[in-house]
C-alpha cells in the first residue's frame, strides 16, 4: 500500500526586541548566567508585568507578512505547567484569541507552487535554559525567561521533507527580512516543531500524529521528517498502531525515539491572564503597521527584473538574503551598473566570504568600495582580472579604498601607448619565429605574443590596446 505524509509545523521565533516581553531586562544572547534577571522574569510574587509595545508591533508585522488577518482584539492567557525552566510555573501565552489568524504562504517546490495555510500566530514568552551536567542535579539560567516569542502554527498542508524545508526557509527569510527576528538558528532564535502522520494514499481520514520538537537546523528538519514518516509507514505495514506522543530527534544518530518520561496527559488549564489587559488594534493602527513593512523578497525580485533588467536567476539570488540585496541596492545607487554589481556579488564575493569564514551579512568593505572598484574597471584604470586581485586585498584591508590599493601596488593599466609600444616593439623583435608563423597564416602566434606582453607588463597592459599595437607591429615587420 502507498501512503500519504501529512505534516504541520509549529515555528517559534524570538522577536528582535531590545528588552524582554514583560520587563526591561535585556534580551541579548550569550550573557553570563542569570545576569538578565529582575523580579518580574524571576516570577517573584506581587510583581506586575507590562507588555512591550514592540512585541505587539512585531507580531502584527509577522502576521501581515504571512498574509494573516490581524485581530482587532486579542488577549494574553496563562498556560500552567511545572518545569524548572519556568519560574512562574505558568507561561504567559495566547489561547483562544491570538493576535493573527488565517494566513497563507506560497512556496516554490520542485513540483510547482504550493499554498501552506497559517492557522494562527500568537505571542508568548520564552522559557529559561536548563543545564544538565554531571550527576548533581540540573542548573537553571533564567536569562531567556521572558524573551518574546511568536509561535507560528500551520495547517497540515505539507506532504514531504523537501517542501517542509522550503517552507521553513521561507518563514525564516520572511521574518529576517521584516526585521521581526534575527533568526539565528545556532542561537536558537528560531526553532521548528513538526507534527507528522501518515495515511493510506488518497484517504481523507488523518492518521495518528507524533510530534518532534526543537529541530534546530534545516537539515535536521528534513532528516527527522524522512525518518519519522518511514518509521510510521513501517509500523503500519507491520499491522501496528501509531502512538500519539512527543518524540525526540537525535540528529547525531539520525533516529527519533519516544520520550516516555512524560506519560501524564497535558492539562494546561489555560485562563485569561489577570495581570495583563487586552490588546486592541484599530484598522488604522494595523494599516500603519503594514506601512512600516519593508518590501518583501517577491516584490523585490520583480523590481530587480523590471527596473534593473537583471535575469530572474540573479534577482532570486540577490533577494534571498536581505544583507545581500541591501548591499546591491546601495552599490547600484552609486554606480549604475546593476549587472556588473550582481556578478561581483554572486560570483566573486561568495568564495572570498567562505575563505574568510564570513556570512553575507559580514562583507567587510562598504558598497561604496565595491562601486569604486567597478568604476575603476569602467574607466579602464584596471582590467577585470586585476580587479579580482584588488577584491582579495579588500577582504584583507577593508578600510583601504580600492583606488588606494591600486596606487600602492602599482596595478593601474598601462594606458600610455608610448610605453606600451616600446615594450611590444621589443617583444616582436625578440620573436621573429612568431612573426614568421603569422606571415605563414598561423594566427595562434598572436596569442603567444599577447601572453609575452602581459608577462612583461605584469598584466597591467590594457588588453584591447595591446592587441591593436601587436597587430600593427607584426604587420610592420612583415611589410618591411
Amino acid at each position, binding site marked *: 500500500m502507498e501512503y500519504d505524509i501529512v505534516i504541520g509545523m509549529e515555528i517559534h521565533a524570538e522577536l528582535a526586541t531590545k528588552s524582554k516581553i514583560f520587563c526591561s531586562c535585556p534580551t541579548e544572547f550569550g550573557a553570563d548566567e542569570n545576569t538578565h534577571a*529582575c523580579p518580574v522574569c524571576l516570577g517573584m510574587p506581587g510583581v506586575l508585568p507590562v*507588555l512591550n509595545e514592540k512585541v505587539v508591533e512585531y507580531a502584527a508585522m509577522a502576521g501581515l507578512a504571512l498574509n494573516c488577518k490581524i485581530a482587532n482584539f486579542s488577549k494574553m492567557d496563562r498556560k500552567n505547567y511545572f518545569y*524548572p525552566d519556568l519560574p512562574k510555573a505558568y507561561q504567559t501565552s495566547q489561547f483562544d484569541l491570538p493576535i493573527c489568524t488565517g494566513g497563507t504562504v506560497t512556496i516554490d517546490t520542485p513540483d510547482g507552487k504550493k499554498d501552506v495555510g497559517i492557522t494562527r500566530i500568537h505571542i508568548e514568552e520564552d522559557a529559561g535554559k536548563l543545564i544538565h551536567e554531571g550527576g548533581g542535579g540540573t542548573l537553571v539560567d533564567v536569562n531567556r525567561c521572558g524573551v518574546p516569542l511568536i509561535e507560528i502554527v500551520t495547517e497540515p498542508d505539507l506532504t514531504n521533507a523537501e517542501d517542509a524545508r522550503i517552507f521553513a526557509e521561507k518563514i525564516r527569510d520572511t521574518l529576517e527580512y521584516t526585521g521581526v527576528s534575527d533568526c539565528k538558528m545556532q542561537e536558537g532564535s528560531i526553532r521548528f516543531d513538526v507534527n507528522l502522520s501518515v495515511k493510506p494514499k488518497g484517504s481523507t481520514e488523518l492518521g495518528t500524529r507524533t510530534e518532534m520538537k526543537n529541530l534546530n537546523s534545516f537539515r535536521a528538519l528534513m532528516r527527522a521528517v524522512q525518518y519519522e514518516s518511514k518509521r510510521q509507514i513501517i509500523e503500519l505495514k507491520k499491522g501496528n498502531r501509531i502512538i500519539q506522543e512527543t518524540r525526540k530527534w537525535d540528529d547525531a544518530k539520525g533516529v527519533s525515539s519516544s520520550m516516555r518520561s512524560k506519560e501524564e496527559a497535558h492539562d494546561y488549564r489555560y485562563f485569561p491572564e489577570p495581570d495583563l489587559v487586552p490588546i486592541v488594534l484599530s484598522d488604522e493602527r494595523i494599516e500603519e503597521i503594514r506601512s512600516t513593512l519593508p518590501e518583501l523578497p517577491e516584490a523585490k525580485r520583480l523590481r530587480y527584473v523590471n527596473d534593473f533588467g537583471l535575469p530572474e536567476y540573479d534577482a532570486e539570488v540577490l533577494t534571498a538574503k536581505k544583507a545581500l540585496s541591501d548591499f546591491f541596492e546601495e552599490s547600484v545607487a552609486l554606480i549604475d551598473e546593476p549587472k556588473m554589481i550582481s556578478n561581483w556579488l554572486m560570483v566573486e564575493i561568495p568564495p572570498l566570504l567562505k575563505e574568510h569564514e564570513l556570512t553575507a551579512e559580514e562583507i567587510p568593505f562598504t558598497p561604496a568600495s565595491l562601486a569604486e572598484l567597478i568604476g575603476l574597471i569602467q574607466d579602464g584604470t584596471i582590467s577585470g582580472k586585476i580587479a579580482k586581485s584588488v577584491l582579495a586585498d579588500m577582504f584583507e584591508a577593508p578600510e583601504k579604498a580600492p583606488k588606494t590599493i591600486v596606487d600602492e601596488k602599482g596595478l593601474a593599466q598601462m594606458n600610455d601607448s608610448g610605453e606600451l609600444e616600446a615594450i611590444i616593439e621589443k617583444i616582436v623583435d625578440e620573436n621573429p619565429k612568431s612573426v614568421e608563423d603569422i606571415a605563414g597564416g598561423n594566427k595562434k602566434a598572436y596569442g603567444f605574443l599577447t601572453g609575452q606582453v602581459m608577462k612583461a607588463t605584469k598584466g597591467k597592459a590594457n588588453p584591447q590596446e595591446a592587441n591593436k599595437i601587436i597587430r600593427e607591429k607584426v604587420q610592420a615587420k612583415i611589410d618591411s
Partner: protein
Amino acid sequence: MKISKEEVGYVADLARLSFDEAQTEKLQGDLSAVLDYVAALEKLDTTDVKPTEHVLELVNVLRPDVVGETLPIDKVLANAPEAENNAFRVPRVVE
C-alpha cells in the same frame, strides 16, 4: 455534584500536592460544594452575554522597548535553596 476520589487525585497531581485518604475525602466534599456554588450560574441564560476577557475596562497598557536595570547576581540567587556557578540548582530533571 459529588466529585470522585480519582478527580481529587488528578487535580492534586496537577498542583503537585498529595493528600492522604482522610484529606481526600474532605476535599471531595469541599470541592463539590465549590462546584455546586458555581453551577448556580449555569441556570442563567447567557446567550447574549459577551464573555468577560478582563474585569478592567483598560486596554493596551504597554511599555516602550527600553532596557533597564537588572538585579545583581547575589539578589537573584538570594532565595535559591541551592546555587552553583551563578545558576539555580534544582533536582535533576530528565529531558
